[in-house]
């Protein structure tokens, strides 16, 4: 099979799975329905590996023309280059593990087949997003994952207590994403105005080869609006508040949205458009500072969350902030490296939390957990690995990928490096707090809950183990040059192979003793926090406080810096107020009253109508008109 056919097959597989489960899934046994959805994912992953291995040059696959009207050409084309292939691997690879996990996790759920239909659809939309060869296809996938995430977040819509809340969380996610989508759409229009095409290659060609430079204002506007789109999908300030709420969905959904798919869309968009962003230093700076602020704010909020999934959710937001800092510095391959390792350990952590929640009979409050390590040993070990990886523990994947971004920051501006270090330290603090509170100490839940504690079945623990291994060795993908010279920066070289724009950006080289110093600092930091956390939570067995015992800063963190309340006050309430006022004052008060007056007047004066009868008008017509009036009046009187 040619690469083209393989790519089409990869794209078609999840769609096929969704079709099967969507139509006849209801009548299939759960195992079959889940196996179909999971099976297509694993096949898609295997095929993606084949595509990856045969990667040579960039390919465009033409599917069909959507619309061709004068100068506007919108085509459904796919593009295979190293960037899209790499995303393909992440999406199908981590995606298939999450599917496998879901087979166990959702086994008690009535809407089993529906869940897998949505999951497959989600993957399909995400594949369109990463495989499309133009911004229009990207937008297709972009909105597509929005719909699927809506369906998945609101999956338990009929729950007695939480049904409506789940729906509201889903709607919030959809609407916030829509605000970002509007930004992206404007970005697309600006690209069309400037370049006359939405094809990545056409735009890249004009900038990189023909040397066409848009005006500074135009470059700024285009990239700024693309970035607005990215803040929606990738949950950056100010559009990040949907992501923690999206935890309302079943846990595998959180893993899928947070780790492998949706949130990486914004990163992908910026990396894909790197040649545009390189023309707009102002946007890069905005991106950098927004990312920095998001990273800090989210890490701060995560410090005092007591819902196991909320901690992880804010952790995702914080890590995404870190990624945007990298993108703002032009460190695209470093960002992709961290996207990859983050996909590993964040999927691991979310699925791990799913396993914990499963064991806890759906309890998510860490205040009611504790000492779980002896009950769910596999989950414990793998969760520990995930925690160490995200905390930047030496030699684990997160250590290398984070370190690369930190090195760029140190090179870029030492101030930014220091702020990032604070964020990194906070990450280690809240992650170790989470780990120790859940797995160490004594069990704080009810006796009944305790009697139900059990390790998850193999189809749930197997993905954990695979992801744990990847979280450990993932760093090998892009080793820094100071350790091994051959084989270093493999991922960077791979991505630079044929991704437009990336090959032109000069790789940054640090002096090796400087790099050693930075690395040493990070190691000391993470080890130090681990030690302190151990002392605090294990030796002194500190537990999470209840709300009324929190000090000032803890309250701020626990209440998420009041972002929701502020947005409610600034946007939601005024809009609702406006809605009521428009209806009461303009609609009913002014427009209706005045029109009623006029119609009343008209209906009482046949005089006016008679005036039109000025000879030159055919009397036939007037008769017809009067006939209609007469008939209407007849019926009204008769009633």
């Amino acid at each position: 099979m040619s690469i083209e056919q393989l790519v089409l097959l990869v794209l078609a597989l999840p769609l096929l799975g969704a079709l099967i489960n969507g139509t006849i899934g209801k009548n299939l046994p759960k195992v079959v329905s889940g196996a179909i959805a999971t099976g297509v994912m694993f096949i898609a992953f295997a095929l993606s590996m084949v595509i990856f291995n045969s990667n040579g040059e960039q390919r465009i696959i033409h599917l069909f023309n959507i619309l061709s009207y004068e100068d506007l050409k919108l085509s459904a084309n796919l593009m295979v280059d190293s960037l899209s292939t790499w995303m393909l691997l992440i999406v199908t690879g981590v995606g298939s593990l999450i599917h496998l996990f879901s087979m166990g996790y959702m086994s008690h759920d009535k809407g089993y087949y529906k869940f897998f239909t949505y999951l497959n659809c989600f993957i399909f939309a995400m594949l369109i997003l990463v495989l499309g060869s133009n911004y229009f296809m990207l937008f297709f996938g972009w909105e597509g994952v929005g719909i699927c995430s809506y369906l998945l977040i609101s999956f338990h819509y009929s729950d007695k207590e939480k049904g409506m809340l789940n729906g509201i969380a889903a709607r919030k996610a959809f609407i916030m994403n829509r605000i970002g989508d509007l930004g992206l759409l404007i970005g697309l229009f600006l690209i069309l105005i400037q370049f006359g095409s939405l094809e990545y290659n056409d735009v890249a060609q004009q900038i990189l080869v023909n040397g066409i430079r848009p005006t500074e204002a135009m470059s700024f506007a285009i990239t700024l609006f693309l970035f607005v789109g990215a803040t929606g999908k990738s949950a950056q300030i100010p559009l990040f508040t949907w992501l923690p709420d999206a935890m309302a969905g079943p846990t595998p959904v959180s893993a899928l949205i947070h780790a492998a798919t949706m949130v990486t869309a914004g990163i992908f968009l910026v990396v894909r458009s790197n040649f545009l962003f390189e023309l707009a230093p102002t946007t890069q700076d905005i991106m950098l500072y927004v990312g920095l602020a998001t990273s800090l704010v989210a890490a701060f909020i995560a410090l005092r969350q007591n819902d196991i999934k909320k901690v992880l959710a804010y952790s995702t937001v914080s890590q995404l902030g870190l990624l945007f800092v990298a993108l703002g510095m032009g460190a695209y391959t470093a960002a992709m490296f961290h996207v990859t390792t983050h996909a590993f350990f964040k999927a691991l952590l979310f699925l791990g939390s799913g396993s914990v929640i499963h064991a806890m009979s759906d309890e998510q409050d860490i205040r009611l957990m504790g000492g779980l390590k002896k009950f769910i040993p596999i989950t414990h070990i793998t969760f520990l690995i995930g925690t160490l990886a995200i905390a930047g523990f030496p030699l684990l994947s997160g250590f290398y990928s984070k370190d690369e971004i930190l090195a760029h920051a140190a090179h870029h501006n030492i101030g930014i490096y220091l702020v990032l270090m604070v964020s990194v330290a906070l990450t280690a603090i809240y992650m170790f707090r989470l780990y120790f509170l859940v797995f160490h100490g004594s069990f704080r839940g009810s006796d009944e809950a305790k009697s139900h504690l059990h390790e998850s079945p193999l189809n749930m623990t197997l993905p954990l183990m695979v992801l744990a291994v990847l979280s450990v060795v993932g760093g090998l993908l892009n080793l820094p040059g100071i350790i091994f010279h051959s084989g270093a920066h493999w991922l960077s070289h791979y991505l630079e192979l044929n991704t437009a724009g990336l090959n032109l950006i000069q790789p940054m080289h640090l002096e090796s003793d400087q790099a050693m110093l930075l690395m040493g600092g990070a190691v000391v930091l993470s080890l130090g926090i681990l030690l302190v956390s151990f002392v605090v939570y294990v030796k002194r067995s500190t537990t999470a406080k209840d709300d009324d015992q929190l000090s000032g800063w803890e309250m701020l963190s626990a209440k998420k810096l009041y972002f929701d309340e502020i947005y409610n006050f600034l946007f939601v309430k005024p809009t609702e107020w406006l809605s009521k006022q428009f209806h009461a004052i303009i609609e009913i008060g002014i427009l209706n009253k005045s029109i009623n007056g006029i119609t009343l007047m008209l209906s009482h004066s046949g005089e006016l109508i008679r005036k039109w009868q000025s000879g030159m008008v055919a009397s036939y017509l007037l008769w017809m008109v009067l006939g209609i009036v007469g008939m209407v009046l007849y019926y009204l009187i008769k009633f």
Partner: protein
Amino acid sequence: MELLLIPLLFALIVAIAPKNLSKWIGLLGSLVTFIAVIARLAAFVPTEKVDLLHTDVITSFKMTFNMGYDGMSLLMVILTAVVVPLILLTSLNRSEGQQRGFNAMVLLMEFGLIGVFTALDGLLFYVFWELTLIPIFLIALWYGAEDRKRVLIKFFIYTFVGSLAMLISLIALGNLAKDFSYESLLEVTLPIKTAFWVMGGFFLAFAIKIPLFPFHTWQPSTYTVAPSAGTMLLSALMLKMALYGMIRWMIPLAPEVLEDYKYIIITLGLIGIVYGAIIAIKQMDIKRLIAFSSISHVGLIAAGIVLFTEQSLSASYIQMVNHALVAVGLFLAAGILEDRLKTRDLSEMGGIAVLAPKFAFWFAVISFAAVSVPFTSGFIGEFLLLKGLFYEHWIIGTIAGTTLVFGAVYTLRAYQLSMFGSPRFESFEDLKWNEIIVFAVITLLVVLIGLFPQFITDLIEPSLDRIYNYIHSVTFQAA
């Protein structure tokens, strides 16, 4: 001619046939019309104009009997022929659907609509335009909700005043032309001042029918009191007469003043987009909610039409088709809720998804089509319309773009309030076969157009080009 005669003939048959057969004869009539239209489509070459009726007879008052179609007319005829059978299908198991009067009036409506879309004489256009008022009025009057009388008087007088203004404009034009045929009316060159008033007359008639802010106040209440079938006819087809009329009649007949009206109409359209959407956000009556959302959607279409670029015209057309299909779907869903729950109040609903999973599924599909997600016709239509408006000015495009966000807010709110949560009723009858067919057909069409809009643009492009080039030659000469 068969396009007009078939629905008329069947309307007559329904009126005299046994009552228990009327709904089937009505449906048959609409299907035969549909087949006739498809036959016309199969034989149609987009670059051509086809005559339905062409005589040299000129009446004493200069009216001619010219009827025919080109691509842009044919598409509206197709739309009519698709939507009418769907409406009759939805009514099969409703009380009004059993009535002779209802089925006859819907077919009479189809007759009138096809007349409007194919008339090539100013007065003939006016006659058909007015004719459509009768069946819709009677349907609403006979089968509407309790408090319909006051609402319908307002509706009637309101649209009637608009029509009269159009009639005056037509007559003023006709006085300067050799007859009322479309070609002759086109030839008239008006002094700017006269042109301004002529377009004003058309504008008033169309603005009321569409309806544009602030001429919309008849609409929410009429949509609410009319039976679902009537609301579908009004929103899916009748308002398209006005949008079509803008492209076919208003702009070409007085192109001299298009520039003067352009920004007025765009402004009103923009106000409508935001105003309708914001009011829809807090409505509790599901039909009123959809009515206000409709004001928001058509504001965008009207703005796209007066923008008058070739792409924005095509985009408006795609969006007209999309709006018609989605409106039928949404009002069907609202009608199902109203029928089975005996209320339109969203606060009294909830948890229906559990009781009626099929309904939940199809309502969700239609809701997503209504918020113009990818793979639906609304996505392409909105994308192209917003692009056009954005090219005109970025502020216009951005204000119009808020529909993306607001649309999601009110549509999903309506869906969630009615469907999510735990059930608040004992039972809710799930979809019947005819309702499923309607939802499925709409979905199929919406998705097909969403993926292959080229079919529509190819059909209408030559005819739109003709009008576009004509207007530009006129305005060029004027400049």
